């Protein structure tokens, strides 16, 4: 898997155009999680699939140059920590762990629902990075026959 660098030119060209649309759709799903079906979990999986698309089409070497893998790792850990930070802020500002202490805003507005939007964004980052990194690690490991 490590030696070959991706698929044919057709797949590479299509991926070069489509990956940004897939990423944008994932971000849309995350940001509208409190208004329409979807949310952080589904949007995160879409982002992970967009990055996987690049990994499958262009190969491992190109992806490791295009993306900073250790930065993705940091992003993944940081989003989990920030989720907890918001939970603890809820204790001091709202009176309970993970309380909705922010301004609720108008119903059906994009910037509404207080902490739900913020938590959705953190979950999206967390899920997207985790799922991509799991496949990244699994694809990098080689199975030696006869062991």
């Amino acid at each position, binding site marked *: 898997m490590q030696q070959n660098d991706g698929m044919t030119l057709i797949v590479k060209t299509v991926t070069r155009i489509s990956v940004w649309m897939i990423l944008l759709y994932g971000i849309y799903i995350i940001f509208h999680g409190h208004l329409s079906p979807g*949310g952080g979990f589904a949007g995160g999986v879409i982002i992970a699939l967009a990055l*996987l698309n690049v990994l499958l089409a262009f190969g491992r070497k190109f992806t490791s140059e295009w993306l900073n893998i250790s930065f993705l790792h940091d992003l993944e850990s940081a989003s*989990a920590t920030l*989720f*907890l930070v918001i939970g603890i802020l809820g204790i001091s500002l709202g009176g309970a762990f993970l309380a909705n202490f922010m301004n*609720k805003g108008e119903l059906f507005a994009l910037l*509404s629902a207080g902490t739900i939007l913020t938590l959705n964004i953190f979950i999206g980052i967390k899920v997207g990075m985790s799922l991509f990194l799991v496949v990244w690690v699994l694809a990098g490991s080689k199975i030696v026959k006869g062991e």
Partner: protein
Amino acid sequence: MPVEYWLIFILIVMIIASIAALEMKDILSSIVAIGVVGLGVSLSFLFLQAPDLAIVQFLFEIFALIILVKAFLGKDYHIEEPSRINKILAGVTVITLAAIFIFSVSVFELLPPFGEPLMTTSQYYLENGAKDTGAANLVSSIILDYRAYDTLGEITVLFTAILGAFTILRIKSKSKKDKTELSHAAK
């Protein structure tokens, strides 16, 4: 056509696909058959009016398909013929499960109809969800406000999974490198 007939149709397709996945000799066809089962689950969620679940199920089905194809294609594997004792045990298990199912059919008649009665908690969520949280999507308001602890648990599970994968595979590759270095030194 009422929803129940569609659900029964999807269920039959799923059962056929799972039997096909077990019986097929070609590994790629087997993986595709498993994908059909997941697609059926996703469609049935859509018919039961749970679009949030349907989206997540559909996406995870694609994700699982990629992982399965990447994990199994091109690797050598062999099919083990089940031994005689295993065949007898499987037969006994199937007969026992069928007997339990037939005897418990009368229990299904005692169950309340689908979606009724509305529980007190869900009644509260339906009436006060939008007012309490300001979110138009009630599912979001439940998983991230009323039941945010659940989501915290899910995140912990994901965190542990990635931690375990990184730890185990890193140790493996390191020991492999040591082994090759040792063999080079021995030469």
